[in-house]
Each structure stands twice: as structure tokens, then as C-alpha cells.
């Protein structure tokens, strides 16, 4: 499939195969990884493992999506990890307060979540205003918010995970669509009532509820980027702020919206985290969620300079990083190699991006 021009041999880079590989290298790599790990790791290639990885990565998907919008405009948001922690801790605090005040469990959860999601617009608003009106570089502005959000989260939680939340939370967050006891019975949304807990391994669990949740969220975001004016303007600003300005686009207002969206998604991740774990937790320094979100987006083909990137590709990026860790761990590889693998992958992603700049 190498195209031939008179008198000129085309190299691999320009061939159709080469270009396909470059545009989809992350997905190809993912498939390759899955194949290799299914051999090297016991139980790697199992529905349980796959579902588990995807389920646990819900937060990562949300954070990567948050970063993607910002990165397309040529900026960056370092505060997402800590805004997530702040949301988690804030919602937990609210739930504790509401429960103590006697509010019913259902209303407590709904009210706390609503309040936190609305309040989450604030960090993004501040980020956006500082960046556009005060012309502070995004790296610094969000670095500042990183510290502020972290400090606030620690203040609220006093450094401890926050418990005392409704028990029903982890049940909602971790439930599956379908539970099957092979040869016996099945039920929806919750494991069968009189099924003993210690026999849980016998159950076949299909499709964690987090999966449709994240798919819907990502689908909405992807649609926005590709088919709505908001998305089109985002790409334009990323490619040339001048072009956007002179076309009459209100760049400042748009950027503020982008950062608000980012912190909203980060807060959504924090809220979801409470549903997954049942406790409110601040984000530790070592977790480095924001860096992994950026890494996933870059592996997914976005460029830090802006103008490029897609939601589903970033999702693939998240999966690549997640399965890399998962596969290596299951295969018994020491942490040493895992960190190196992620590092190398990142560099490869960027180099490929440089060699094939036209890939969308």
C-alpha cells in the first residue's frame, strides 16, 4: 500500500499503513498490550479484570476529559486533582452535616451532590478570570489553585478520610447491571437479597453501572467538541487566538467557560469517588492525578501546544496507561518497570506527534 510517485520512493512515514499507525498508534498499542498480557498474566484476560479496571478508571476518564478541553485551547489545568479532592471532602462534610441535622438519607445525598456541583463552578471561574483578565499563565494560575484547593480540602477534612456517610453510597457506586449465578438465577442492579456475601466470587457480574455513566458523559463531551459551536471555537482558539478574536469570538468568555467546565468535571469525579469508596477523601500529593490526566490526553494524541485532541482518543489514552499498570502488576512485574514504561510511553507519544503533525 505504499504510494508510488515517479522517480521517488516513498518511505514508511508517508505510506497509508504508516499514517494509519500513527493516527491510531495508541489504540493499536492497547490491543497489542492486551494480547501480550493475556499470556503473561494469569486472569488478565477476564471479564472481571477488565470491568474492574474500567470501573476504577472512571475518575481518570473524567479528569482526562477535563484536561482535554483546557489543553486544546493551549492551556493546562493543574488543579483538577485537588479540586476533585475538595469536592469529595466537601460533599462528605455536607452529608455529615445534613445527617446530623436529621435530613433523610436520600435528600442528604441529593442535596450534598447538587450543592457541591454548583460550588465547583467557582474554582474554574477563578482560574478563568485570573488567566484571562489578569493574564496570568495557565500553568501558574492553576498551580495556585492547586495549592488553594488542596489547603481547603485538608482544612475541611483535617487530614483524615471522612466517614460516617450513608452506607448506601458504595452500593450505588459499585453495583453492576446484572448479577448472574451460573446455572441458577440472575438479578438486576443489586446482588440477590438472600445471597451470602462470602459466596460473592461465584457471582458473575456484568457491566458496572459506572460504565454507562462514563460512556454517556464522554459521549456528550465528544459531541460538544465535534458538532457544536463551542467545540469548534475551542479548537480555533487553540490553533490561533488571533484568528478567533478577529472572527468575533469572545475568547476571554470562552476560556472562562472552559476552565469552569474543567473544574466541574473534576468535582464530578470527586463526587463519583464518594460513591465508589463510601468515604470523603482529600487527594494526596503522590497520587498526581492531574499529571496522569495530562499524560493520558497526550498519549491519546493531543498536543500540549493546543488545537488537537479528541475525547475518545483521550479515553484510549487512559485505558493504555491503566492497562499498562494493571497488566504489568498482574504479570508480577516490579514497580520499577511500571514507572519506566509509563515514562517511555509518554515520550513515544510526543515523538510520534512530532513526526506526524497532520493527524487530527
Amino acid at each position: 500500500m505504499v504510494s508510488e510517485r515517479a522517480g521517488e520512493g516513498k518511505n514508511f512515514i508517508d505510506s497509508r499503513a504508516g499514517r494509519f499507525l500513527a493516527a491510531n498508534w495508541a489504540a493499536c498499542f492497547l490491543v497489542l498490550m492486551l494480547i501480550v498480557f493475556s499470556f503473561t498474566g494469569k486472569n488478565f484476560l477476564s471479564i472481571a479484570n477488565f470491568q474492574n479496571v474500567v470501573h476504577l478508571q472512571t475518575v481518570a476518564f473524567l479528569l482526562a476529559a477535563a484536561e482535554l478541553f483546557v489543553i486544546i485551547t493551549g492551556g493546562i489545568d493543574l488543579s483538577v486533582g485537588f479540586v476533585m479532592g475538595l469536592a469529595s471532602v466537601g460533599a462528605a462534610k455536607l452529608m455529615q452535616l445534613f445527617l446530623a441535622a436529621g435530613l433523610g438519607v436520600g435528600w442528604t445525598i441529593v442535596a450534598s451532590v447538587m450543592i457541591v456541583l454548583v460550588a465547583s463552578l467557582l474554582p474554574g471561574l477563578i482560574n478563568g478570570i485570573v488567566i484571562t483578565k489578569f493574564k496570568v499563565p495557565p500553568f501558574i494560575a492553576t498551580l495556585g489553585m492547586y495549592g488553594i484547593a488542596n489547603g481547603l480540602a485538608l482544612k475541611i477534612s483535617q487530614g483524615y478520610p471522612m466517614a460516617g456517610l450513608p452506607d448506601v453510597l458504595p452500593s450505588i457506586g459499585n453495583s453492576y447491571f446484572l448479577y448472574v449465578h451460573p446455572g441458577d438465577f440472575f438479578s438486576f442492579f443489586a446482588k440477590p437479597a438472600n445471597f451470602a456475601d462470602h459466596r460473592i466470587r461465584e457471582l458473575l457480574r456484568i457491566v458496572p453501572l459506572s460504565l454507562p455513566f462514563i460512556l454517556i458523559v464522554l459521549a456528550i463531551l465528544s459531541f460538544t467538541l465535534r458538532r457544536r459551536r463551542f467545540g469548534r471555537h475551542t479548537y480555533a482558539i487553540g490553533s490561533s487566538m488571533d484568528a478567533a478574536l478577529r472572527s468575533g469570538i469572545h475568547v476571554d468568555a470562552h476560556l472562562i467557560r472552559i476552565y469552569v467546565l474543567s473544574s466541574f468535571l473534576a468535582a464530578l469525579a470527586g463526587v463519583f469517588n464518594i460513591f465508589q469508596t463510601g468515604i470523603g477523601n482529600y487527594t494526596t500529593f503522590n497520587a498526581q492525578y492531574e499529571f496522569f490526566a495530562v499524560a493520558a490526553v497526550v498519549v491519546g494524541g493531543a498536543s500540549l501546544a493546543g488545537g488537537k485532541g479528541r475525547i475518545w482518543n483521550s479515553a484510549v489514552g487512559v485505558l493504555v496507561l491503566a492497562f499498562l499498570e494493571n497488566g504489568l502488576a498482574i504479570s508480577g512485574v516490579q514497580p520499577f518497570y511500571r514507572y519506566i514504561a509509563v515514562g517511555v510511553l509518554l515520550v513515544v507519544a510526543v515523538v510520534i506527534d512530532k513526526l506526524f503533525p497532520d493527524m487530527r
Partner: protein
Amino acid sequence: MSYLLETKDITKRFGGLTAVDHVSLGLKRGEALALLGDNGAGKSTLIKIISGVHKPDEGEIFIDGKKARIESPIDALAAGIETIYQDLALAENLDVGANIFLGRERMKRSLGVLKVLDDKSMREEAQKVLDRLDIEIPSLKKTIRTLSGGQRQSVAISRSIYWDAKVLIMDEPTAALGVSEQKKVLDLVRTLKDQGIGIILISHQMYDIFEVADRLAVMRRGVKVGERIVKDTTPDEVVSLMVGSETVGKER
């Protein structure tokens, strides 16, 4: 014949510096007016005032004889004044249609409810404009990163035409182009003139000016030092006006 665009006594100061000093110009329909001057002469500032980037301290702008309030780029666009800057201000990662419609995208209703970008119709309209200007661009689906300098210039011009520009300001349009592409751009300018559009051309290329411009105005240190009909003058005279070896006062 009345002027399409006229400026009267436009003045702009920045601190202690008078960048533009009581400049009056007139541009007729279907005419190309070249604006010349050395660096720092005030050409860019004057252009920016006409396109709404700066507000003048004194003076007025008239469009088709009527006084116009131009206080922002959007006002200028609304008045039919489009500017093509040296850096083109195009989005590299978008295709031709998207660029032409940037900021004014066409939407269609999907499933009756959602408003969605109507890329197909934007591409069709883009093709029409390109045809009208006799520009050839092979694939409208690719991003403009794949286009040559001259083609990009054409896209920038097409954008202005689509939005019914009455006045087109071109800042150094052929500066970064190869010879054959320069020729194409000049042809385009002639086509635009035929269609009745008024063009203000900033250029250092004498060749371009003498090829397509009808009149020219020379600025020096913020002042208009001379205006000539291109047919009746020579490059030497123009250069000496720019540099100042002729003794001139302010011409009004």
C-alpha cells in the same frame, strides 16, 4: 462619485507620540488604494483605526457618505470592512469551510431538537465563493495546514468576500509568497476590483503597487505627505516622497 470609504482628519496619539496626524483619505468603489510609507510612518495604526482595533483621538470615518461609528473590530466587520493581516489569522487545524465561517458558523437541527454544526453546507458555500473568485483548492475537507501560502491567502480573502466586504484592507499580501502565487493574488485583487470592492493595500513591493493600484498615498511620520494617481507617477517619485527628499508640507 462619492467615496466608498473616507477618513477625515484622523489623529491618534500614544502618550507623547502622534502616530497618525490629521490624515484624510478617500477610497472609491472598485478602486485599489495603495498605502505606503517607511516603518513607523503610521500606516498600520491608520489601518487599525479603520478596522476598529484603535479608536481615533480626532477625526471621522464615513462609509458611503454616512458617518460611521467604528469602535471595535465587530463594528468594522458589521460596516463591511474586512482586514487581511500579514499573519492571515486563520485556524490551522480547521478546514476551509470552518475557517470561512469562523465565528459565524451555520447550524442545522439534528433530530429536530439539537443545533449542530452544518459542515456540509459550509463547505458548499465555501466552494461557491472559491469558484466566484476563480480559486482552486483540491480538497475542502483537509485542514488548511496542507495548503500553500498563496492558497491560504486566498482562503483569507474568500472569507472576507463571503461576508460581503465592501472594503478590503490587505496588509503585505504578497510578502511571504513565491512568484507564481504572487501573480495569483494580484489577479484576485483585480477580480475583486471588478466586483466593485474597494481595496486598501499596504505594501512595500513597488511592482505590486504599480500592477494593481489605481491611486496611492504616502505617509511619513504620521502625516500624509503625498497622494498620486499611479498612472501619473513613477517609483522614484514615490520613494522620494516616502523618504522625504521632496519638500512638502501637509497635504490635505
